[in-house]
């Protein structure tokens, strides 16, 4: 599929590029210390931080991937928002943010150093740094592939132009520039795709027309979850609620520095708490923008013979092209430029978010901790800037690696999943159990990661996994109905193993003095009094309202 752009479309794209670089240029003069460059001087207004918090997650994999999942799994995809995001974001705001912010840690790995020890921090910092570079590279690769497919643009040129633009605004304005651009990108993505939802719904006969033209089993959220054989996601209540709703959701939203960083750079602890909670409000409505187009595409294939989801080379539908194909079908020139710019913005948002999280963790948690401890601040500012350039170059290299070895990227993403899955157990025990020890946490993390790998190696789903069973010349221990179901179970096993090993080793290893854990552990920290806050600044009240609305959505679409 090729899109035919005209001058107005190109002017829209050019305007966007000028604005994102312009934001970086204007902010350049404010970047005087490493804290300004890597932590925004902890001065980001709450409304900006909240939208950046949600936008940092609104990368291309989200925008294209959720439309694809909408076409594949229908309304069940909303679980990634209503079950797999909102509750965890509220939990982060109410319970965990006081420790991240109150401990004065500059990063998530630094919190681990304060709570446990340097080796746990080192493990988390190094794996996180590698993960962010690969995620950034994958965003870059996917953008270049999309521009090649949609516009016929050269792969190398797309990589270079995108990288230079992201480098320009992150190098000039640091984290502040990335955060400000994420807010612009948020509005562009929402307002750029909203007309598509309106046009699509209008075309298929509104909500009733949509329901009439989509398989009924795709228009529910919970129906058929009693067994993994009776719903399109191929999973069940247990693995969905525990695997996605608890382990993966809390593991990502509460411990991934890429998103947590957006709340940590606000002015006050109350702002930091309210950031993820306010972000959860647009988050629960995001399915309208990112999932509904996929479902509309299904209905459109029945009502409009001129539309189909593009076919994949190997047969079947290429669901990842659902959103671009809808843009092509509905948008005239002008609006087409806006829609395309929204897609480009989502890729850049993902890449910049990863690069700015990478430079902070590398500078503070690797360079300052292990390479040069007591240098003047100006030195760390320079290092932060150099690391930003290195991060972009490494992302480019990763994008070319992805082009050459598709399987390597799949493998690495899988390995990173193994590392991330048990991390929430480490944080959960660290924050809520004062007897958790450094050795318990470290070996718990290693064991959880190994358990995740072993579960993947001994089970199989849609032809994936089972590599360990193959090596051992035995049959896989279990066959899952879908890869998604397998992933939820891998995460559950990793969490449980990490939790139990951390608990068990902590019983027999040396605990830290309680005085050293004040401000880091729930039971040893004075509760923040929220009674005097006006209701909309009270994390418990707003968080409870979000949870109630989320439950109502689940009931309505049950």
């Amino acid at each position, binding site marked *: 599929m090729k899109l035919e752009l*005209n001058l*107005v479309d190109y*002017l*829209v794209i050019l*305007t*966007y590029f000028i*604005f994102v670089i*312009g*934001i970086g240029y*204007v*902010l350049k*003069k*404010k970047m005087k210390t490493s804290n300004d460059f890597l932590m*925004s*001087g902890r*001065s*980001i*207004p709450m409304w*900006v931080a909240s939208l950046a918090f949600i936008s940092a997650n609104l990368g291309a994999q989200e925008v294209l991937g959720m439309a694809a999942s909408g076409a594949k799994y229908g309304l069940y995809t909303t679980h990634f928002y209503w079950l797999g995001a909102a509750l965890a974001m509220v939990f982060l705001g109410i319970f965990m943010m006081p420790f991240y912010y109150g401990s004065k840690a500059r990063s998530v790995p630094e919190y681990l150093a304060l709570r446990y020890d340097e080796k746990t921090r080192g493990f988390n910092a190094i794996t996180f740094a590698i993960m962010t570079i690969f995620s950034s590279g994958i965003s870059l690769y996917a953008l270049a592939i999309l521009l090649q497919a949609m516009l016929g643009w050269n792969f190398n040129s797309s990589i270079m132009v995108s990288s230079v633009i992201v480098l320009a605004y992150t190098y000039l304005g640091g984290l*502040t520039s990335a955060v*400000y651009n994420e*807010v*612009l990108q948020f*509005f*562009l993505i929402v*307002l750029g795709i909203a*007309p598509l939802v309106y*046009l699509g719904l209008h075309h298929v006969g509104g909500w009733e027309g949509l329901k009439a033209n989509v398989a009924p089993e795709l228009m529910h959220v919970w129906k058929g979850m009693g067994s993994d054989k009776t719903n399109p996601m191929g999973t069940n209540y247990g693995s969905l609620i525990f695997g996605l709703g608890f382990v993966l959701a809390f593991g990502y939203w509460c411990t991934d520095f890429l998103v947590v960083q957006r709340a940590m750079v606000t002015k006050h602890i109350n702002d930091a708490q309210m950031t993820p909670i306010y972000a959860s409000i647009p988050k629960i409505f995001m399915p309208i923008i990112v999932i509904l187009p996929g479902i509309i595409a299904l209905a459109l294939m029945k009502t409009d013979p001129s539309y189909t989801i593009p076919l994949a080379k190997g047969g079947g539908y290429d669901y990842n092209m659902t959103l671009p194909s809808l843009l092509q079908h509905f*948008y*005239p*020139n*002008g*609006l087409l*430029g*806006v829609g395309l710019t929204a897609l480009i913005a989502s890729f850049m948002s993902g890449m910049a978010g990863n690069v700015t999280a990478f430079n902070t963790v590398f500078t503070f948690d690797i360079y300052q901790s292990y390479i040069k401890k007591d240098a003047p601040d100006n030195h760390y500012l320079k290092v932060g800037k150099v690391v930003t350039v290195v991060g972009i170059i490494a992302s480019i290299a990763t994008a070319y690696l992805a082009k050459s070895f598709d399987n390597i990227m799949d493998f690495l993403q899988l390995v990173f999943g193994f590392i991330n899955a048990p991390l929430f157990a480490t944080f959960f025990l660290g924050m809520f159990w004062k007897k958790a020890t450094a050795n318990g946490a470290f070996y718990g993390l290693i064991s959880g990661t190994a358990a995740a790998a072993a579960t993947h190696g001994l089970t199989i789903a849609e032809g994936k996994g089972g590599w360990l069973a193959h090596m051992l010349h035995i049959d896989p221990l279990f066959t899952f109905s879908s890869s998604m179901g397998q992933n939820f179970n891998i995460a559950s096993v990793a969490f449980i193993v990490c939790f139990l090993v951390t608990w068990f080793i902590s019983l027999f290893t040396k605990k830290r003095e309680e005085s050293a854990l004040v401000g880091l552990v729930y039971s040893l920290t004075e509760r923040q009094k929220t009674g005097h806050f006006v209701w909309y600044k009270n994390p418990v009240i707003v968080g409870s309202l979000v949870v109630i609305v989320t439950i109502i959505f689940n009931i309505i679409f049950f």
Partner: protein
Amino acid sequence: MENNSLDLRIVIGLFFIIISILLLIASFVTANGSEINRITGLTFLAFGIIMYALSKIRKMK
């Protein structure tokens, strides 16, 4: 920082005002889809003006 260096509401407001002008131009020069370009252009214009106005109201306070 926002007040000292860069008010994001002004930036977002200006961005959407410029994009709305481009969409309104497109509604005149594009044969198909002029109506949706016009409606979206006017919506973006309203959003841009609101964002811009919000920054001014805040400063007056």
